[in-house]
């Protein structure tokens, strides 16, 4: 069984670019601040519906925000 790659994401950078706090982003995604923090730090992988909400909020494709490590060396 292949070892699962750690999911990485650009959420923190995208949020910082917009000068949003974790709490402000959480409100827009209708989740808790802890959820945003867990996603940003890679401790929690969002579900597909939440990943789509994040993509829509930043007007980006999911794979432009999340990286499953498939293309990492």
């Amino acid at each position, binding site marked *: 069984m292949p070892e699962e790659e750690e999911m990485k994401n650009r959420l923190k950078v995208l949020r910082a670019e*917009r*000068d*949003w*706090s974790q*709490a*402000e982003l*959480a*409100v*827009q*995604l*209708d*989740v*808790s*601040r*802890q*959820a945003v923090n*867990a*996603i940003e730090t890679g*401790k*929690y992988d*969002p*579900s597909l519906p*939440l990943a789509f909400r994040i993509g829509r909020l930043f007007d980006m494709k999911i794979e432009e925000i999340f990286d499953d490590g498939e293309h990492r060396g």
Partner: protein
Amino acid sequence: MTVSIVAEIPGAQRPGAEPKSASVKANHRLLAWSGVLGGAIGFAMAMSVLSTRPEQGNVAEAMIYGPLPVWLAVVMALLWGAVLPVISWRWHQVVDEHEREAYRDGAVAGFYVMGVGAPVWWLLARAGLLPPIDLATLYASFLIVSGLVWAWRKYR
């Protein structure tokens, strides 16, 4: 800039307060109702037990094992067995997926406390190596382990 963003966010709070999403507000509101319910049950039980004037040093034991009036036991059992599940059912509907996962992991840990802890204790008690199973201790262990795992998964 930040202030203007907060003002645009639905459900934004008073200036200075951390904004909370609709699901978090609903979550906290239902937890508060659970707290009120638990507090009312605890207060009613304490008043009932203390009114029997248990001997000093036996208050804690009387709170857990002491007899209760039938009407009070039935009312509290209905609150715990019928009202609390309704609040819980609603809570599961409103919480976000991260909270749901933290709760699930806490519940699984609690399940193992009961599913493993109870038979192990029961077997050792039958051999005289442990005192008989104590329901309050087992239930408290379940709550503590579930709560710790939930908190770790949510706030780590």
